[in-house]
């Protein structure tokens, strides 16, 4: 049987007297788009921030590709191939697109220039940024030196997603990627998600938007009161069911859930 690429068991995270995660479990299978939904305060963001390295859980265990991990920073998560597009996008507005793509892992020139004088290889970063954006169907070769603050919300999202996808990552976490976007820009982001999936990258999508979730997700993880209430698929359950699970009106027995991998279309 396929092993989850990202797995969490019994995760607990407390913030003072508030419990963000209450013995939550989590499974992401290779190549799938897993949506995480839940009411405000259900612990969606806390859950994914543990895998992103932005939070460290107080209890419980996490595995990436079968190896147990304990991330202390987003940097460590990235080293294990888990990239995150945060809701705030985490871009430096005054820096240009290529500087943002390589922020925190800049390329240095080969030889003495790079090793001793630590010179950045701007040419290569620009060229490769252009290629990464092109891979996702965004052509910016002429404008790669444009500062990010001059971009629209959808474009910034694209830059953020490109950054996550650029570094051979296997898992990309998207936190509310369409929350601040209009209809047209949201559609672009959903397209980007499908592109990522086509390239074999597993995606975790946090969203409030039910129609979007049901459009792109293979499986849907419903978070409630800090733990996993159920895992369903768009085929087995309706949007109304999902809302009912979120609010606690409906309980789904494990036999009716989709805890294992679904047949991921290639």
């Amino acid at each position: 049987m396929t092993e989850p690429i990202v797995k969490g068991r019994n995760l607990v995270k407390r913030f003072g007297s508030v419990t963000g995660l209450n013995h939550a479990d989590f499974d992401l299978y290779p190549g799938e788009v897993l949506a995480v939904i839940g009411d405000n305060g259900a612990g969606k963001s806390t859950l994914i921030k543990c895998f992103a390295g932005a939070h460290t859980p107080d209890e419980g265990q996490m595995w990436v590709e079968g190896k147990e991990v304990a991330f202390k920073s987003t940097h460590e998560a990235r080293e294990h191939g888990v990239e995150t597009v945060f809701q705030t996008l985490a871009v430096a507005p005054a820096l240009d697109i290529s500087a943002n793509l390589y922020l925190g892992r800049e390329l240095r020139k080969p030889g003495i220039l790079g090793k001793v004088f630590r010179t950045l290889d701007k040419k290569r970063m620009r060229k490769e940024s252009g290629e990464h954006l092109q891979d996702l169907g965004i052509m910016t070769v002429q404008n790669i030196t444009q500062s990010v603050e001059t971009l629209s919300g959808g474009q910034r999202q694209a830059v953020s997603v490109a950054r996550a996808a650029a570094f051979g990552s296997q898992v990309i976490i998207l936190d509310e990627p369409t929350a601040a976007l209009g209809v047209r820009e949201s559609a672009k982001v959903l397209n980007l998600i499908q592109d990522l999936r086509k390239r074999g990258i597993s995606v975790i999508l946090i969203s409030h938007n039910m129609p979007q979730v049901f459009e792109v997700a293979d499986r849907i993880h419903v978070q409630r009161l800090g733990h996993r209430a159920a895992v369903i698929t768009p085929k087995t359950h309706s949007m109304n069911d999902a809302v009912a699970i979120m609010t606690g009106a409906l309980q789904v027995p494990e036999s009716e859930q989709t805890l294992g991998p679904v047949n991921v279309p290639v």
Partner: protein
Amino acid sequence: MSAPATPEYDLDEEFTTKRSTVQRIQMTLHRYPWLSSLVVLVAVIIVFGLVNERFLLPNTISLMIQQTVIVGTLAIAQTLIILTAGIDLSIGAIMIFGQMLMANFAVYTTASNVLPIAGQNPIIAIILGIMAATAAGAVNGFLIVRFNLPPFIVTLGTWSVFMGLTLILFKARTIQGPEMPETMKFMGESFPVGPFNFSFGVVTMFVLYLLFAWILKNTAWGTHVYAVGDDPVAAQLTGINTKRVLFSVYLVAGVVMGIAAWITIGRVGSASPNVDPMLNLQTITAVVIGGTSLFGGRGAVIGSLIGAMIVNAVEMGLSLAGVDQAYRTTAIGLLVILAVGVDQWIRKVKQ
């Protein structure tokens, strides 16, 4: 699988929209904020040159550049700190601290009985002075990073602390030029370049500007300085060790202040604890007029050199025109407000 059902979206088209001329100017200034200050500097020189021909004499220009050297060098340190959205009010006090330490180590005086190993080789004295300024910068950085204190408050405090320490340790005694070995005053020695006269201090300042302009543009550290000033949370989420970057900025600024201390001894010709109590504010003026944003993440060191020169050119020009000191001070103040106004306009670049 067939192509996604969603229609084709053309993101390229959005990345390559046309802009009007005003927007283009705004965009250009946005990318190179020091350009507007360069225009102002050129305008100032032309206007004062027309008003008074003495303004453009090589002697006047040489003097103006030499007068810029203390504020100009310190402004490098201030720029680095302001780029991280910080501010350093202790900049002058640390420089004076380093300067007095240098001079007291180089000269044996009975007054400096707190320094029993005084009378050292001047090179060692200079190195000790630069190290002391670096340590002082590190103290600022440590307090800001470790305890999350606002830079304004920390440096307001250390400003007084280092002023006080200087007076306690060195007894407020001015060490006169003739008392010091020549090496201490090396930065003040000048040599002719065509009709102009440059001091080694001026050359050092220019070299430091080129060095830091290069570092900020071409190293990861430089990019991180901008990123931390721009949006510290974002910088942290992308895996940058923001605390280390911040601390290193205050440390490096300390090194620059130490070098400025040596330059000041050369420029002034003596080491006095009362050089200029307004140095910290003058560096902020130079940085702001030079187009670096007080909100962080935007600007360039080269702008601060231009800013310091604008202040000096306006001072010199108005004084040659016989304008009273009070009016000159007022003019500089208005210039600062204008510069901040331009910064706000430039920051508004959006589609």
